[in-house]
């Protein structure tokens, strides 16, 4: 019941925050958001799952009750945690709390609504990462859009309305396509399943129960469903060329929202890809190895090159997120322990580091009110601590050893290089790895222009060092990044434990 408790408490916290007066909302939201943090850490400490939740592993904190009848199918309220979702849950709770703190300075109006929505979003995110029944999962999956729409649309920048609606509709279309793909797959399973619980479906697919449906042979159905779902999730990730909603959303969104967007929401896409496409249809995935690997490399290089062309710090980080998520796709398609495990680890690592980068940009923005590289230089002179953390974070992003990013990327590279899905995987890996040079390029350029050199700033704000509660979240994130980098096993062991069953799948149909 602890998962239900966690989600319920978060929803309650959201409600409470909604009705509080704006003055107290921020502090209260922070205090309330600590409850899920503690809860998730407690879960982690109590965590006793083994294997993959979808493939017959033991699931932690499982509840499974019939919710409603739908034709031949029972819809269950089924939630549970395994080695893939546990780290993401911890990430979500911690990042939300930090994002809330980092919102104290920039969010000046309608605070209670803002912080309420943040908590509301957290609750739904927790649902996404714990739900094990398709419809329950899908409800949370879609529900995340609603708070995000408001968070961007109400508190965003000048073009916030455009960005919000673009994000809203684009990702919604994606979900619909994914829905159709998945449901056709379900009906392809015919009577071999009696509910929409993901484990049941996954195992039925492994058992080769997939039959033809709607005039498609089993194989064709699997391919069609795979493509539909891949499209649906790729938009969320985002994989180039389906990424164009991301920069707009990031640039317009207020910093804390960018943190959540890059830190957690993007992970929904990769998480779903892993749970659905790569776990349920491994054979199909392998048969699509070439195009998927191409997409991955494209995302990495294309995203990085685009970041190189940007002048807006947030745009830079936004595009580099596209690049980093490309690594995840590469790792997933590798089908090796280090590949898939590293991809999952990268979800957490990138969550922390991109969150850190966006926050750092935000802290600078709070005082300079600009994010344009061209508008400032030598900021380090006035904001030494922030600049220092910024540099550290940037090197983390570049994959500096002993920080989480390097661990994740090295795992992925190692896994992808030795992958057997394709003869040419080493070449793709090598190509993707060139991203680590470009990322160094644009981050170093950006830092040289903004942080270093003689202090210049054309703007009538006086640039002073940031208040403690702005810097503290940065420090925490940096610390976590280093801790995870020094000992990735904190999560990597449980991740591998949950990932390895996927690799053994034959999955013939």
């Amino acid at each position, binding site marked *: 019941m602890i998962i239900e408790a966690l989600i319920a408490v978060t929803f309650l916290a959201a409600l409470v925050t909604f009705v509080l007066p704006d003055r107290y909302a921020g502090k209260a939201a922070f205090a309330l958001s600590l409850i899920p943090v503690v809860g998730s850490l407690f879960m982690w400490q109590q965590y006793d799952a083994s294997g993959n939740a979808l493939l017959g592993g033991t699931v932690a904190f499982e509840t499974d009750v019939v919710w409603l009848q739908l034709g031949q199918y029972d819809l269950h309220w089924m939630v549970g945690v395994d080695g893939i979702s546990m780290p993401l849950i911890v990430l979500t709770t911690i990042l939300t709390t930090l994002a809330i703190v980092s919102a104290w300075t920039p969010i000046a109006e309608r605070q209670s609504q803002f912080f309420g929505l943040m908590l509301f979003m957290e609750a739904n995110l927790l649902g996404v990462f714990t739900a094990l029944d398709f419809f329950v999962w899908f409800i949370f999956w*879609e*529900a995340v859009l609603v708070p995000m729409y408001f968070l961007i649309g109400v508190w965003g920048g000048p073009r916030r309305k455009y960005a919000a*609606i673009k994000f809203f509709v684009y990702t*919604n279309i994606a979900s619909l396509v994914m829905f159709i793909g998945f449901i056709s797959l379900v009906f392809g399973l015919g009577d071999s399943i009696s509910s929409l619980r993901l484990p049941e479906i996954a195992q039925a697919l492994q058992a080769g129960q997939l039959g033809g449906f*709607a005039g498609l042979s089993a194989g064709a159905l699997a391919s069609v469903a795979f493509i539909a779902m891949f499209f649906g999730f790729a938009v969320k990730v985002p994989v180039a060329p389906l990424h164009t909603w991301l920069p707009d959303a990031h640039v317009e969104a207020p910093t804390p929202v960018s943190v959540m967007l890059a830190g957690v929401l993007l992970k929904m896409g990769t998480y779903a890809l892993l749970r659905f496409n790569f776990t349920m249809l491994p054979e199909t995935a392998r048969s699509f190895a070439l195009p998927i690997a191409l997409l991955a490399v494209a995302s990495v290089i294309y995203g990085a090159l685009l970041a190189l062309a940007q002048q807006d710090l947030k745009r830079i980080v936004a595009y580099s997120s596209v690049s980093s998520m490309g690594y995840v796709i590469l790792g997933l398609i590798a089908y090796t322990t280090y590949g898939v495990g590293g991809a999952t680890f990268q979800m957490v690592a990138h969550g922390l580091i991109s969150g850190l980068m966006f926050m750092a940009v935000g802290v600078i923005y709070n005082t300079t009110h600009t994010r344009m590289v061209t508008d400032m230089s030598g900021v380090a002179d006035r904001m030494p601590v922030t600049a220092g953390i910024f540099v550290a974070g940037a090197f983390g992003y570049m994959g500096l050893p002993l920080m989480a990013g390097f661990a994740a990327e090295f795992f992925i590279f190692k896994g992808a290089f030795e992958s057997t899905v394709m003869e040419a995987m080493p070449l793709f890996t090598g190509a993707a790895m060139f991203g680590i040079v470009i990322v160094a390029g644009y981050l170093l350029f950006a830092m040289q222009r903004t942080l270093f050199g003689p202090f210049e700033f054309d703007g009538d704000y006086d640039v002073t060092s940031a208040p403690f509660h702005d810097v503290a979240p940065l420090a925490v994130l940096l610390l976590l990044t280093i801790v995870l980098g020094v000992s990735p096993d904190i999560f990597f062991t449980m991740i591998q434990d949950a990932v390895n069953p996927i690799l053994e799948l034959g999955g013939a149909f």
Partner: protein
Amino acid sequence: MTPLQTAPEWTAAAPAIILAVTGLALLLIDTIDPDTSSNGLLAGLSTLGSLAAGGVAGWFLTQGTGMESSGGAITLYGDALVIDGMSLFFTLIFTSVAAMVSVASYDYLAGRRYQGEFYSLVMFAATGMTLMAMSNSLATVFVSLELASLPSYALVAFLKKNRGSIEAGLKYFLIGALSSAVFAFGISLVYAVTGTLLLPEIAANLSVSSDLVGVLGLGVLMIAGGFAFKTASVPFHFWAPEAYEGAPAPVSAFLSSASKAAGFAVAFRVFTVAFPLGPVTSLNGGGVDWSLLFAVLAVVTMTLGNFAAATQENVKRMLAYSSIGHAGYALIGLAAITTDGGAANGHVLGASMAHLLVYGFMNTGAFLFIAMVEKWGLGRTFADYNGIASKAPIAATAMTVFMFSLAGLPPFGGFLSKYFLFLSAIESGFWWLAAVGAVNSALSLFYYSRVVKAMWIEEPSEPLEIGSQPVGLYVAVIFAAVGTVLLLPGFRPVIETAQTVAAALF
């Protein structure tokens, strides 16, 4: 059998009777005291009447009246009426909508004349709808359909000094008259071919000589036209935008939710009972493939409705078009029926019915919110809605719920009903129909969220003033909102009932 084992059979028609009696009672009050100002009495009475009818219907449903559990459908008056799960289910929709509308009208009509007439007309229309859902013979279908339509015409044109209202009434009436003529002619043709008006007998007499297939087909098609008019489906939809825009908002709510549902109720029954797809498509010398017909209508209707709605500047008209779009979704229920569908047919039809129920709540609520805005004297365009949330957060929240629910976003009822509809369509193999629905639904998110954007995100151009806080409207709107939300966790009984009663038709 009825729950009251001793009661005579006609008590099975209690819901309809209650509504009719309420209507008459209202008329009586009005005749006794023509210029009564006791608006509360009238509104309360009609609300009470509809709630009572709804309560009875619900009670019957839970008792299993007219369902397998208690000996199958109950037929009355020479099989002219049939009370079964489906009719009761739809009665629930009509009555709940009628109740909300009546409550809302308490404020909307405050200080207007002819209130008694208004409520009694609503009640009579509701009676007609209930009868539509019950009718088992083309004769009763036609009569009840007219009984539902005629008051509607009057209601739309209720604001006699308001050109918009009059124009709406005129268009509604003229198209309605034309449609009913087409409808009647269709019935006559079917009668010509089969020699009966009772639905089951029609099904029995379908084996016609090949040279009459065309006549039968023509008849079926024209009957479908009559329903298309009621449900505001292409090509009989032209009245809808104007009627909904021009009519008093509560009436728009009533028509777009209840009247539409009634059209679907009778369409479902007539086509599944009188023209079972199997025989109808395999007549000697041809066939009448109405599932294809409805597939085409569904695609065209939902596309036209949504695309036209996307570019509206007037919120009320946007909702009007969106309700056309939703008619398109609901049509999937008929379109996705297949000859060898088996259980799947029941699923998709049930899903469509469930969607209509949820739609009853969210759409009514949306129109009632517009009624509230009209009450506040704000304009009807999106721009006029700017910043409402800052003045009336509760109402705005409710409207947000309606909009997102209509768009099919969780955590609201519209999410499950729409997705179950798509799911059932896919189950019947109509994944392309679901795909079209998906595209439209994504587009609909665009224009629904425009309302939300206006209320929450935009700043009002000039400081907007909100006068009274209309109690009745608030009650109705909040009731609808709560219903919409609760229909997500509480969707189980709805969908299960719907699919059982739908399955009973095959």
